[in-house]
């Protein structure tokens, strides 16, 4: 079976380097983008099996990008794991998990907080991909 392709979208270079290295070491193929605009383009081109998406990015935030993915009929089935520091300092009281999903948009498949727990992230990715492939067959 060909390795699954995972896309990392984060505006911090360190996080991108860390996650791509971690995922490649664990047998995944990776691609990455450093902002929301570039991210959407690459998702359409690369068609990853799963996306690790940072919540807060300049220009286009992870929330906006997530909604666009879910509204696009060709991309809406790609599972997404949201990654963020639990809350932005400017908005300490907003529960982002509730904010992301609306009536028409389901919540993301996974939610990871920084600092990233390697084992938990790998487990979440495996679980999500397994669920998707079993659901698809």
């Amino acid at each position, binding site marked *: 079976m060909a390795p699954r392709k995972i896309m990392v979208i984060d505006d911090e270079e360190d996080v991108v380097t860390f996650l791509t290295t971690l995922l490649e070491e664990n047998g995944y193929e990776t691609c990455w983008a450093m902002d929301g605009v570039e991210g959407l383009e690459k998702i359409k081109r690369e068609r990853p099996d799963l996306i690790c998406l940072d919540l807060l990015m300049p220009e286009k935030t992870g929330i906006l990008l997530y909604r666009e993915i879910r509204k696009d009929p060709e991309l809406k089935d790609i599972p997404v794991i949201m990654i963020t520091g639990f809350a932005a*300092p400017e908005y300490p009281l907003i529960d982002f998990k509730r904010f992301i999903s609306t009536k028409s948009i389901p919540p993301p498949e996974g939610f990871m907080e920084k*600092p990233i727990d390697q084992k938990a992230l790998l487990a979440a990715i495996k679980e999500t991909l397994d669920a998707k492939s079993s659901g698809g067959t």
Partner: protein
Amino acid sequence: MPRALEGPDPNERIHVDRPTPWRGKEGDLLKGNLNTEAQSPLGSKALSFKTGILAAASCAASWVIAFFLMVFVGAEDLPIGWLLAIGVASCLISGSVITIWTKLSIFDPLAELTQGLHRITRGSSHELVIAHKNKTLSPLLDAFRLACERIQERERQLERSRKEFHAVFEHVPSYIAVIGRDFRIVEMNRNFRDTFGGVEGDYCYRVYKKRSEKCPQCFAEKSFYDGSVHRSEEVGVTKDGEEIPYLVYTAPVVDEGGMVVHVIEMSVDLRPLKALEHEKLQAERLAIVGQTVASLAHTIKNILTGLEGGVYVTQTAMKKDDQALLQKGWAMVERNIERISHLVRDLLSYSKVGIGTMESTDLNELVKDAANLYVEMARAAGVELILEVDDSLGEVMVDPKALHTCIVNLLSNALDACIEDKEKSSHRVVIGTKRGPGGQVLIQVEDNGVGMDRSTQEKLFQRFFSTKGTRGTGLGLMLTHKLVREHGGRIWAESQPGRGSVFTIAIPQSPSAAYANS
């Protein structure tokens, strides 16, 4: 000038001018207005005198009648003795009739009226009672009765307002003192007496502030001088020796000739307000601490993510003996260690640095010193550094170290904004000083770098807000903001994305303005 406490029109306050009007005895006013020469019980002397004159007049009239009788009846044959007798008799009869009629119908009711008025004046009666029924004088008596009723009604109204005024004066939750031209207290209310002590006749400065001489800046004196209301925040000393902040309004009391005879000082205790202000400040401080801790936790988490990532990448590279990956991973570790040291340094400076000693400082020199630090860096980055100072600025009272920190922060941000901008071919940073409105001096740092959008501008002075990614801690501008505020000044930014930014610090030139605001 706020109107609310200025009080009513001076003409309406004239009554305060009179010595303690609310303590006057009932009927004072009537006594003053109606007291005539008729202090004897009935004014009987005057009346008897008048009655005599009338009798004499009636006598003369009788003689005239007798003369006409002689001429027209043809009594020239009667002996002279008879004629005299008839004259005397008619004189007596008509005189008596006129006298009795006058007494009964005019003088008796008048005497009774006088008596009644005196009874009312003395306060022993409230109603004008006249026993005599007399048609001739009844309109006059009715008019008097009506006048008396009106006067009594006015007196009752006056008494009522007097009592109301007294209640307000005594129980209003303020300190009220009426001051004479010699600065002695003419009148004080209960609140004043209970708080400051003292008695009427004491010097105001002794009672208010326990001073032995007049206050150097006396607002009562100002009101005496210009006849207008003045307002001031003062600190007094209570009778128990406690210092008490109060807000005082001094209102002139003008006499009929337009001269200020007294000044009323109305003061409000500011202690509750100050206590509330203090509580609010404490609450705000606690909220800031909470926010700061949350923000700090977030920043540290981000750094930790980078560090863990760096360690993982380094380990992986060592396992695989991948030199390129090893360099990448190690760079991540180094970068994040640097972030921690930046954060710690900024945090320390934020907690330590506050406004220190204010010194008379040449701002232009301060700006030149700060700019010198960046000359080399600017040259290396290809940014032109331009100095534009106003030589007529003179010296300004500031904490030079604190202000130096502010200028350095702004300069370093301006250079960063230029270095980050890849659009323009040439970049410049202009730092200058100039005079602003209202005796302020301005320090401006202008760049033609990347600029900022509105949302970035709104968050500029918040804790841990940074656009510099891993290089910034988001404390520099916040620290600058804090220091400028402590100088009683203001900092703001104007910017357009892609065009550049101007940061302006405005500081009051005089130290008193700075302390007042801080």
